[in-house]
């Protein structure tokens, strides 16, 4: 449309860029272009509006996401899993950096009949079936300490010091079943069931994890926070600490953990949050 040097175009052809026109020619040309341009713009705006309203209607429950948004979260998870190593460590801090961790929620901790003394960790879906463990038995396993930044999905974060047993070490001592039938090997996590489910003793709060995140070297079954045994509000006697996930996955007062082949229910995912919730 530009740069031509030939004679003026015959009548009916659009004028060249920057060509001097009569008032009538200019107005006629602007009318043609405006009709076309605003028709496309109007159609695009209408399409956007209809698409928006359609998307808003795709939530099947009031407290869940529309399925295309749910699908996008799932795609984001797949992109993350394809690009990133599931063993990458969350940055650690010095112990001086610890802050005061907000308890931020008592779901699953409200059972008035719960007694610390009688507590045992129920483990299900192990290679040898179900088993239960006292805190002392868990503390007899090799344990670790770490100082990491706890990140709440609300947006705040606090550096905290934890002590506990790596879930991976627990799995080594009390292995899950494998598809191959061989003994579970940490180097072959794909051989284990793909998911781990955890819930509070009263079943009110429950969390699902992908096995790669569950076996991450910083995923702990923790019994101490900032050098003190866990307080009740922080999930005594044993809680999950998983720095590669938002706080919502860091379940307090673990009652049961179970290896499973189906993606487990997750308290916050049922309320519209990302099931994966990885960091």
């Amino acid at each position, binding site marked *: 449309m530009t740069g031509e040097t030939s004679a003026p175009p015959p009548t009916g052809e659009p*004028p060249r860029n920057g060509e001097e026109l009569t008032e009538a020619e200019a107005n006629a040309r602007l009318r043609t272009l405006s009709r076309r341009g605003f028709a496309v713009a109007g159609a695009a705006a209408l399409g956007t509006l209809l698409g928006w309203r359609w998307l808003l209607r795709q939530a099947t429950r009031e407290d869940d996401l529309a399925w295309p948004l749910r699908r996008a979260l799932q795609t984001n998870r797949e992109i993350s899993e394809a690009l990133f190593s599931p063993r990458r460590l969350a940055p650690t801090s010095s112990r001086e950096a610890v802050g005061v961790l907000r308890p931020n929620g008592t779901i699953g901790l409200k059972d008035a009949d719960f007694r610390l003394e009688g507590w045992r960790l129920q483990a299900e879906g192990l290679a040898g079936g179900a088993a239960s463990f006292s805190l002392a038995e868990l503390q007899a396993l090799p344990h670790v300490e770490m100082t990491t930044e706890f990140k709440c999905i609300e947006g705040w974060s606090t550096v905290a010091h934890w002590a506990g047993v790596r879930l991976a070490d627990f799995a080594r001592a009390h292995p899950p079943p494998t598809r191959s039938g061989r003994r579970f090997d940490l180097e072959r996590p794909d051989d284990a069931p793909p998911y781990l489910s955890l819930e509070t003793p009263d079943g009110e709060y429950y969390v699902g994890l992908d096995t790669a995140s569950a076996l991450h070297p910083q995923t702990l079954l923790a019994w101490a926070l900032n050098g003190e045994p866990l307080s009740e509000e922080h999930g005594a006697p044993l809680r999950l600490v998983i720095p590669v996930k938002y706080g919502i996955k860091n379940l307090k007062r673990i009652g049961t953990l179970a290896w499973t082949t189906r993606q487990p229910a997750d308290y916050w995912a049922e309320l519209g949050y990302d099931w994966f919730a990885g960091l």
Partner: protein
Amino acid sequence: MPRLVQKHSLATRWFHWVNFPVLGVMVGSGLLIYWANDVYRVGVGGWTLIRFFPDWVYRLLSLDHGLALGMGWHFAFAWLFVLNGLAYVVYIVSSGEWRQLVPRRRHFREAWDVVRHDLGLRKEPLPPAKFNAAQRVTYSAIVVMGALITMTGFAIYRPTQLAWLTALCGGYQAARFEHFWLMMGFVAFFGLHLVQVVRAGWNNFRAMVIGVERVDAPPEAPAASPAPSEVRP
């Protein structure tokens, strides 16, 4: 005699108008997320001038109690925002249009003249150009801000996997702070842009839809034409 001059290419117009609703979704869903921990304010010590945001703002915009919803929208539409922005940058570079857009040293000086001109404090007309010095500075700055808000966004989104990026931003909370204020910058840009578009009038706005602008001034004499590098075919 009037002339019709091609001002914005079809590609530029699509990038612009796609970005408009996408940015709206990003800001709206971002505020839904921010609401859950709305800690930023302007003030000194214990004295607060303004808190971001007063409750009536969330209520007015219906942006309260929607963290999960906000995250769902934000992490879906972020891809559109990033891809549209990347496509725009690739286009602007490969088409050579960046030459009319990227400010040179003198434009930073002249931008101040434009500001005074627009406020009615300077009477001399602005030198003719597709984009004046202030437009060059702001339209380029907004692209840089787009890159920064993407970077800080990823730093918040995957602070373990992209720990190097989060560290580059000064940490997790620093990245969140930067992301918020870049958003405020985008909102401020949008407000100013809207005012300037209204001031510039219909011919200018129409050019963003149909691409063509009506020009009534005679074509410039060759001597007054811009430097060769700025001439478009």
